Each structure stands twice: as structure tokens, then as C-alpha cells.
């Protein structure tokens, strides 16, 4: 696979799927073996002559404004896990805040929503730390 850039129709389909939130569902259905194969294909492709790849990228960028050749599938998986974490309803701390909401005055109800979102976002630091540890210690 010398050229891994997608045509315009595929790009538009991907855009629509991301806007409709369907991409999350599609990615979750991709089996891990396919992810590994795709990742190794992209790594092999990037190990080819860098000049020809750069020339192809310049040529493609002039034709298509959207170039997905630089996006690693692992990055997409990370983005998916981050999005899942942010929308997670399994956080006991935010669940506690939401359970208090009916008993609070109106001004506090708005704050509860904000604080619950912040608690979910704080979980992202766990993911980032895990990734950082994996990068520093790839052998475990």
C-alpha cells in the first residue's frame, strides 16, 4: 500500500460519522487484530523512502485538504478511550453529586453539573499517566 490517503467520498463519510457520533460505535467494533495489522502497515509505510512520502504528501495536500495519512490508529483508539471516559456514568463521585441534585437549591444545581463534568475530566489524567508510563517503560 503505497498511498494510504483516502478519496474525497470516504473523507466526507468519515466527517459525517464523526459529527453524528457514529464513529465511536464503528471503532468499538474493530477487532484488536485488525488494529494491530493496520498499525503495522502504517509503520511499514512510514519506513519507506521519506522523500517520496514527503512528495506524495505535498501533492495530495494540494488536491485534498484533508490528509489522514499522519493519523495513527493508536491515536484514534486513545481518542476513543478519552471520549468514553469523559462521558462515563460509572464515576461514583459524579454519581454522588448528581444524586444530591434534587435536594439542592437552583444555584447549586447548576454548579453540580459543572463539578460532575470536572470530576469526569479529572479521570483523563489517569489515562494520560498510563500512556506516559507505557511510553517510558514499553517492556512493562
Amino acid at each position, binding site marked *: 500500500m503505497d498511498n494510504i490517503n483516502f478519496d474525497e467520498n470516504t473523507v466526507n463519510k468519515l466527517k459525517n460519522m464523526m459529527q453524528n457520533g457514529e464513529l465511536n460505535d464503528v471503532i468499538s467494533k474493530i477487532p484488536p487484530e485488525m488494529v494491530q495489522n493496520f498499525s503495522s502497515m502504517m509503520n511499514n509505510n512510514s519506513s519507506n523512502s521519506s522523500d517520496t512520502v514527503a512528495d506524495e504528501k505535498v501533492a495530495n495536500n494540494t488536491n485534498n485538504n484533508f490528509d489522514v495519512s499522519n493519523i495513527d490508529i493508536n491515536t484514534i483508539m486513545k481518542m476513543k478511550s478519552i471520549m468514553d471516559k469523559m462521558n462515563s456514568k460509572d464515576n461514583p463521585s459524579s454519581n454522588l*453529586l448528581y444524586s*444530591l441534585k*434534587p435536594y*439542592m*437549591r437552583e444555584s*447549586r444545581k447548576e*454548579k453540580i453539573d459543572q463539578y460532575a463534568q*470536572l*470530576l469526569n475530566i479529572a479521570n483523563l489524567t489517569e489515562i494520560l499517566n498510563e500512556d506516559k508510563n507505557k511510553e517510558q517503560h514499553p517492556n512493562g
Partner: protein
Amino acid sequence: MDNFNEISRYNPFPGKPIIEFAGFKLYLDDLLILGILFFLYKEGVKDNLLFLFLVFLLFTS
């Protein structure tokens, strides 16, 4: 505070403080937050962010 005067099925004393001392008026939701904070502390919960946000909530008028 006007919104708090609305009759709520969760609050038997709408608009009225439950405890009043030294100029402090504690309403039902204040007592609820304080109770949750005390319970979490007694249970040994280590979630500092949760404690922080509950304290912020307590000081929100």
C-alpha cells in the same frame, strides 16, 4: 434565595433555616452537604476533588 422558597417535596421547611446560630443559617441542603462530608471523612474516602467540590458547593449561595 427566592427560588429556595418554592415548595419542594424534598424539603419540608422551604425557605426556612433548619439551624440558626451565631448569625449562621443552615438550610436543609447545607446540612445535607455537611452530613455527606462527615460521612465521607469517617469512611476514609481519599477523593480530594470530591471533598473540594462539596466544600465549594457548601459556600455557594
